[in-house]
């Protein structure tokens, strides 16, 4: 399958942002573990991994704007809708379970992980419904 220029740009952006996330996370863990930061610097350091993840959300949005193939764009829109529905549903259910002390606390950044997992779910749903036919 040929890869569109928009998809190539998206893949590059996600790769760089993922690398940045890894570096920022390791730096933040090291800084806080060794008590090297405090005050505003601590806030910035704690936010750096989040900014990389937010950057990936922005990359998805930019891809949707740049993709010229309307069918491929529609597939990605469906994927993101599945991802959003899945992440929000699990987060809502977990929030109520947590409120009533049925389950323990989970950090809210796991919603982002659920969303990325939801993209995979959306891809499966695309294959099951509209499919990705290979026959010419």
């Amino acid at each position: 399958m040929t890869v569109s220029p928009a998809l190539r740009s998206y893949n590059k952006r996600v790769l760089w942002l993922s690398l940045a996330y890894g570096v920022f996370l390791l730096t933040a863990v090291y800084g806080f573990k060794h008590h090297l930061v405090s005050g505003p610097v601590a806030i910035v350091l704690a936010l750096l991994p989040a900014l990389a993840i937010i950057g990936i959300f922005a990359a998805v949005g930019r891809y949707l704007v740049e993709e010229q193939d309307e069918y491929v764009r529609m597939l990605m829109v469906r994927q993101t809708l599945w991802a959003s529905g899945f992440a929000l549903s699990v987060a809502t259910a977990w929030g109520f379970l947590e409120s009533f002390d049925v389950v323990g606390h989970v950090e809210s950044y796991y919603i982002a992980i659920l969303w990325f997992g939801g993209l995979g779910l959306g891809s499966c749903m695309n294959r099951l419904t509209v499919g990705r036919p290979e026959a010419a």
Partner: protein
Amino acid sequence: MENRLRVLRAERSWSQQDLAERLEVSRQSVNAIETGKYDPSLPLAFRIAELFDRTIEEIFTSPSRRSSGAI
């Protein structure tokens, strides 16, 4: 939406990839349109019609006309 895209393409001995390149879309898109899994936007429908030198109605069957038995 039913259409005659596969027939028109076959008349010219074009593969799905050939048609996709002429329309500047992916082969995946051509396949989805041909099999009726995806209805193209109006601009893309016009591009398809212009490529085959036909009107949109000559290529795509209106779902409402099809259900009323007008065609």
